[in-house]
């Protein structure tokens, strides 16, 4: 078999859009300035698919989101792009109060196949609103699946799954992974939603991380190699959360550190810790540590790198728990 070509993560996302839009006429994209393109994931798509399927809206997130929300009821499969993911808050009611609950509260008669996407995360040093990771804000509410890729391979596969899923799926991607290169098969494939992956085997400690923090986790695991054997789990989805894969690992290692680029309060890190101390209490040999943004707004400028989770903080937590 010939070697799989490498693509940057953002191109992997774009390929998922292209292949699914070619396959299925009902898939379309709506957003602001996506025809011209802000991030490379939409650039050039309008030439292939036209303005009927690459739809630019005014600077109006409720109307923009509504294009997707309403069209999904009518049998379309929209992908709605919030550019910077934090802007989703401008449509928080239709997303968190209406979309998430629409199917269930109306007797599970309808499905709303749609993808809600946006980029965020530290790295541009812009701080708070642009960097704000929103996966936990959405994951708080049942009815919307939430995933975040760590590798180009997962980016393409998760996006394809998200588009094909009959439910609303938030696909949140981290700006700090945008240009990361990795192998991406040419054909369309799915990475299942709601399924975590053990990305590196180890025996001393379980380290959970996603997005850019997955890279940091690998860096730390490499550094500790020979000293501490780190098992890395990429949750891939944060809602529904695949707690079983994590529990299985903790059962083996007895130790757990969770990295989550988010405020600590009500984070995925806290949620995992809570579930493990409930169901997996007897497996634990040590306290569970969370490496998150401390509960302060994320500053930009020169502070971003040391306030956001980083390899030093992860290493310290891992060593602390393993001592």
């Amino acid at each position, binding site marked *: 078999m010939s070697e799989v070509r490498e693509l940057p993560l953002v191109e992997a996302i774009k390929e998922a859009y292209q292949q699914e839009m070619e396959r299925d006429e009902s898939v379309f994209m709506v957003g602001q300035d996506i025809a011209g393109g802000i991030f490379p994931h939409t650039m050039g798509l309008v030439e292939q698919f036209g303005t*009927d399927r690459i*739809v630019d*809206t*005014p600077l*109006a*997130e*409720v*109307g*923009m*989101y*509504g*294009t*997707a*929300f*309403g*069209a*999904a*009821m*009518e*049998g*379309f499969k*929209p992908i709605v792009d919030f550019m910077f993911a934090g802007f989703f808050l401008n*449509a928080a*009611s*239709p997303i968190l*109060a*209406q979309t998430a609950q*629409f*199917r*269930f*509260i*109306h*007797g*599970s*008669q*309808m*499905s709303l196949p749609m993808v809600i996407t946006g980029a965020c995360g530290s790295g541009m040093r812009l701080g708070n609103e642009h960097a704000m990771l929103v996966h936990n804000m959405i994951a708080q509410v*049942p*009815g919307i*699946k939430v995933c975040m890729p760590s590798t180009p391979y997962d980016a393409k596969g998760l996006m394809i799954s998200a588009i094909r899923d*009959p*439910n609303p799926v938030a696909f949140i991607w981290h700006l700090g992974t945008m240009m990361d290169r990795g192998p991406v098969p040419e054909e369309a494939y799915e990475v299942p939603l709601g399924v975590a992956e053990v990305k590196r085997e180890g025996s001393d400690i379980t380290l959970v991380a996603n997005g850019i923090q997955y890279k940091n986790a690998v860096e730390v695991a490499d550094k500790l190699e020979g000293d501490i054997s780190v098992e890395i789990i990429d949750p891939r989805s944060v809602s529904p959360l695949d707690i079983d894969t994590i529990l299985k690992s903790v059962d083996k290692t007895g130790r757990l550190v969770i990295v989550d680029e988010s405020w600590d309060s009500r984070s995925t890190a806290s949620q995992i810790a809570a579930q493990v101390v409930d169901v997996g209490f007897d497996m634990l040999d040590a306290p569970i540590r969370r490496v998150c943004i401390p509960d302060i707004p994320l500053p930009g400028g020169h502070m971003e790198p040391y306030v956001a989770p980083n390899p030093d903080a992860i290493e310290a937590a891992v060593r602390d728990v393993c001592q």
Partner: protein
Amino acid sequence: MALGKEQMKTLYRNLVRADHFDKMMMNRIMQGKLIGFYHPGDGAMAAGVGASTFLGENDILNPHHRAHGMAYMAGKGIDVGRYLAEHTGKADGCCGGRSSFHWSFPEQKVYGASGFIGWHFCPVVGWGWASKRKGNQVVLMASGDGSYGQGGAHEAMLSAMNWKLPIIFFCENNGMAIHSTADDMHPMPDISSLAQGYGMPAVVIDGQDVFAVAETVIAARKHALAGKGPTFVEAKTVRLREHDVGTPDLARAEPRDPEYLEELKQRDPLVLATKRVLAEKVLTQKQIDKIIKEAEEEVVVVEKFADDSPIALPSIEELQAGVYA
């Protein structure tokens, strides 16, 4: 575009039915036989009936929340039994008894409801966008004067005009939003002034005249189907009772003037419509009596259906299975 006699008969019948359904809901909430609340539609059922009776099968309907959408749903021929069963927390409810006060008839393109007033200004853009792509359907989007305070109204009107979407912005202006008056909460006499900002055609009509409403909406629908874009229809109507049963009937912090309310009652849509169908010999008094009797019988059937349906008590596991498709 004058209405034909058959159209007038249909409208009259639906108005009688809607009126009976509203009274049924009132009776039931007084008897403790409804879950949640009820926002009476007394004296204000003509606008919804007129707007929805001649929608096409493919048209998307978003009913106004007053009378919990009954005026519109009577017009669109929704299964009132399942509707009432929902309001009664029953297993045969149109939402499985989960919602208490919502409705959902996706096959008839009445997708659902929300407790957030103005929520529909969001999906309406997509309903309009999809309708334009499909080419053979329009959206009737109804809501009250109060709802037009929402920012979403602006975002919806903006894209509707940019894209010439086949949407009818149908506003029932009853001059009230709970205790607030439209006089205080809107700087212009008509809510439809807002349409001017977008160059959207707007028309103000008598919402108590079920025939006038139907004529206007039929025209707006034609306009939309011809690719000419949205229309703003403002139907002036009234609120005869309190906002919802149990809430005091105030304007600002003062009780509303009983004399003024008495005046409003003079223009009851059913009285107006009856006068006209008799005068124009569309219906005889005998025919009218029959229509009323049929409506009464329909109420009995509907109530029996809801009352006979078992209380919805699914297990947590069953509920969990309904979150995702």
